Every structure is written in structure tokens, then in C-alpha cells.
């Protein structure tokens, strides 16, 4: 896998690498994809119907209003919170 592809995947994945780490990762990804490519040897098609015929919609729970988690608990793990989630300025 070339460096540009790995860089593109890293951007998609919201990850950043140093140049040295990117080169190492490209080498590892090449070896991993060689292993993944063995599935190309088999000629087989996916039958979506087979996986989805068994979906039951009659056992759904009623749409009742339930108590929500208190704001204090929801924010308890946020590093920067002032009774809300705080992020850097998005709009200038």
C-alpha cells in the first residue's frame, strides 16, 4: 500500500502520523492486505435476502417516554464542560 493511500485513509479516519510512522504503517498495511486479498481466490456472491428475511418488527417495545440520564451524569466525563460540551470556535 503506497504512502498516499495510507495518508488518505488516515485523513478519513481522523488520525495523524509522523512521516516515519506513516512509512512503517504503510509496510504493515501492505502485508495485512496481502492476507486479506486471499478472499479474491473464491468466486462467491452475497445474498442480502438471506441475512434480512429474519427481521422481526412485532416484538418492538412501546414508544413510551422514559426518564433521560441527568445532564450532570451525561457531562461527567467531558474534560471541558460548563453545563454543556465545549468545543473550539467553529464559526468565525
Amino acid at each position, binding site marked *: *500500500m503506497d504512502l498516499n*493511500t*495510507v495518508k488518505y*485513509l*488516515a485523513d*478519513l*479516519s*481522523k*488520525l*495523524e*502520523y509522523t512521516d516515519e510512522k506513516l512509512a512503517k*504503517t504503510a509496510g*504493515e*498495511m501492505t*502485508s*495485512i*492486505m*496481502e*492476507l*486479506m*486479498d*486471499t*478472499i*479474491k*481466490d*473464491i468466486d*462467491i*456472491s*452475497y*445474498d442480502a435476502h*438471506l*441475512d434480512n428475511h429474519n427481521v422481526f418488527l412485532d*416484538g418492538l*417495545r412501546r414508544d413510551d417516554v422514559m426518564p433521560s*440520564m441527568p445532564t450532570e*451524569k*451525561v457531562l*461527567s*466525563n*467531558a*474534560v*471541558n464542560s460548563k453545563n454543556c*460540551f465545549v*468545543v*473550539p470556535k*467553529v464559526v468565525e
Partner: protein
Amino acid sequence: MDISTMTVHQLRAALDNKELSAKEAAQSYFDRIEKYDSELDCYITVTKEKAMQQAEKAQARIDAGEAAPLTGIPMAIKDNICTEGVKTTCSSNILENFIPPYNATAMEKLDAQDIVMLGKVSMDEFAMGGSTQTSAFKKTKNPYDKACVPGGSSGGSAAAVSADLCAAALGSDTGGSIRQPAAFCGVTGIKPTYGRVSRFGLVAFASSLDQIGPVAKDSLDCGIILNAICGNDHHDRTTSLEAVPDFTAKIGKGLKGMKIAVPAEFFAEGIDEEVRKAVLKAADDYKAMGCELVECSMPSLKYAIPCYYILACAEAASNLSRYDGIKYGHRTAAQAESYEELIIKSRSEGFGDEVKRRILLGNYCLSSGYYDAYYRKALALRQLIRKEYNDIFEKCDVILTPTTPSVAYRPDEKVDDPVKMYQADICTVTVNIAGLPAASTTCGYNDKGMPIGMSVIGRRFDEATILQVTGAFENGFKTVKPRL
């Protein structure tokens, strides 16, 4: 009375007969944790104060004659299962300080029986690995040889049970993460049928594959814990409405007439001779118990590793996109100029190398131009693997395979080579791909005394027969404890 070596069912009897108290039982494990855990690195968090309060509550219930099967039993919990008010790190820097505001359903069910939680045990980061060496905090050692890995990802759970640092533990299994460490550490573990146990509160890795299950000293203990944690849950729509039987009911019953399939591909090249011999010897033992051995084949096994890693990593890439450093989890201390930069820096600092590799692999297989060639093809293979299992179960009751291709190894033999690590999962991943239940128990030891595990795979929702089969073997097998 050596409390720490007792099984859950032995502890139950001792607690109910007032031969010991819940506090004494808990204290005996804390003494061992203090003495041995600095060498083994099983526990990320020890919750002694909370445990002693739980023991007091459990004792009151026992004294009132209202004990449930797990009341007062000291257990360890894998650190990817949410425990309200107790840190749940997933062995990742990104969740280093995460304290869940709620319990996982499995944890709620254990709490309802008043277990005593000794603490949270280590694992591979986000359950991605088979060695517990990708943990950001505790790289657990194998109690049989501290130079070797305990397996993974539930390595902390298996090592803690093996070393008597808890009576039993909860683990989770996405591609073998209960069975493989159970095999490496000489204990018993079962991955339930997909849908048996709620995944609510289990930190998500690959949602179509993940299941919580027990790691314990024997099959009876596994059944007792399964009885407690299974069942439909309105928080998890993938949990089954299937009736939950008593999983211990068949243990102790004879195996005469039971048909056990032995698929040739699981004993082929790549499986160490000592492992092959030990599992085939177990097959002979089953024959001597009156079972019929059935030859069978699973040709799709050669595609199992790529199929599993494509599906698991695709789901992981999606699941782990929630970590943004804003709502919870690690947030970069660096000055981020934008929302995007904040997320990128937080994720890059928080995730370890293996987790990052799997996110990249998942996004590659899902990306435009590659989706059909990889992800859709893996979905097709999943259907083929399920069909081959269905065909095998037409002519047998259970399937017997090795749990691992080798015994536990030293970290430097494999851990730095992702391809070697992935290939080592060959014996376990098809069970998760097909959503089947399977248990691993010890069937022998190699010439260095390292445990060898065998797996018994059952039909969907037939965990009771699996435990009957593994329990029958354990009944005539002499286990050798690790010497710490």
C-alpha cells in the same frame, strides 16, 4: 480450607454453610492480589472498599437465607464492561479516566445477585489482540510462565482466574477473546450464542460479533454465571427472545450416543503437533465415554481470517469514530485551532498502534471502489461459513477443535508482527462469524507444562450441551495449577 482455589460452586456451599463469610472470601483474594498481582499485572483497578461493602450486603442476604447462586462470590470484570462509578478504560489511553455513569446489563444482572467485584482486569486495547500486550496499562503475564503471554483479549480475566486472584471473571469474545486466553491460562471459558447476553454497556468493538461470557475454573461455574447474565434486554435489540434454560442442567449426564464432529481442516498444517495430539487424545477419550466421532470438513476455513478481519475492522472503524475527545475520553492538551484539529489530535494521542491499524483497515475495506471486493465479499463468506456449520450440525451434536494453533508464546515471537498475530486466530474466529456458542477447556499440557485447550462448538442456543460435553471431560481430567 484454601479459599482461593475453590470453585464458585464450592464457595457457594461454604458460604451457605457458614464455613466462611463473604468478607473472609473477598479478603483472601485481596491478600493474593497484593502478593502476586505486581508480577502478573492482571488488575487495572482494584475496588477493595466497594468490594467490602458489597460483601457486607451479600452476607446479610446469605444470613437471611435468600442467597442467589452468585451472592458473595468474588469476581473480576473485564475492563471493557461498564461499571457505574468505577473506571472502565478498555486498556486504552483514550478512556484512561472514563467513569461510566451506568452499568452494563450483564453487570446489573451480577449486581442483582450481589456478587463481590474485586476489580477491573486488563485486556488488549479495545479487545483488539490476542496477547494482552496491546494494553496501555497492564501487559498481563501468563501464570504458568511469566515470560509468556496470557492470550487475549480477555488475558486479565483468564490469568486472574488461573492464578486464583478471583473466583471467576467476565470476559468478552469477538474472535476468540474468551476461549484463547482460557486455553493459554489453563481455565474454562464460554462464548455464548450471539444474542444470548446483552451487549448494552460492553464497549463496542465489532457489534455483529461481540459477546460477553464467563471465564471460570470449570464448566459448572461457567454455567452458573451464564444463568445469571443471559436474557433479552430492551437496551439491546440483538438479544434473543429465546428461553433461557438452566445451563448447568446437563452437566454430569452421560455422553453415550453423542455425536462429535472432528473437522479435518482444524487439525491441518499450522497446528502444532503437541496441540493436535492432545485434542485428538481428548477425542479418543470421548469415544471411550460412548460418543461417536464423525469425520467432517470445513473447506471455507482457509478464508476465515480475512473474512473475520474485514468484518471486524469495518465495524470497529465505524464504532470507534465516536471517540472525539469532546463528550468523554481523552482530549488533547494541545491548543487546537479548530474542531477538526481537536478530534484528530485527541484520537491520535489516545489510540494505540494496533487500534489505529484496524481503523485504517476497516475504512479501506469500506471505501468506495473497495467495498464490493472486500466487505461485501466477506459478508458472502460469512454466509458460506454459516452454511458449512449448518451442514456439519446435520450429522453431529457438537464439534471438537483445538482452541489455538500453539500453546502460549513469548511476546517477542509474534506480538510485533500483525499478520502472524491475525493468523493465530484461525481456530476461533469462525464461531463468531457464524454466531455460534463455543467453550474452551484444558485437555493437556505440553512438555514444558504449558496448558493446551480444546474447543467444543455447539448449535445456536445449545450452550447446555456444550457444557455437558466439556464438563464430562473435566470430570476425568487432572488439572495442574500454575506455580506462582
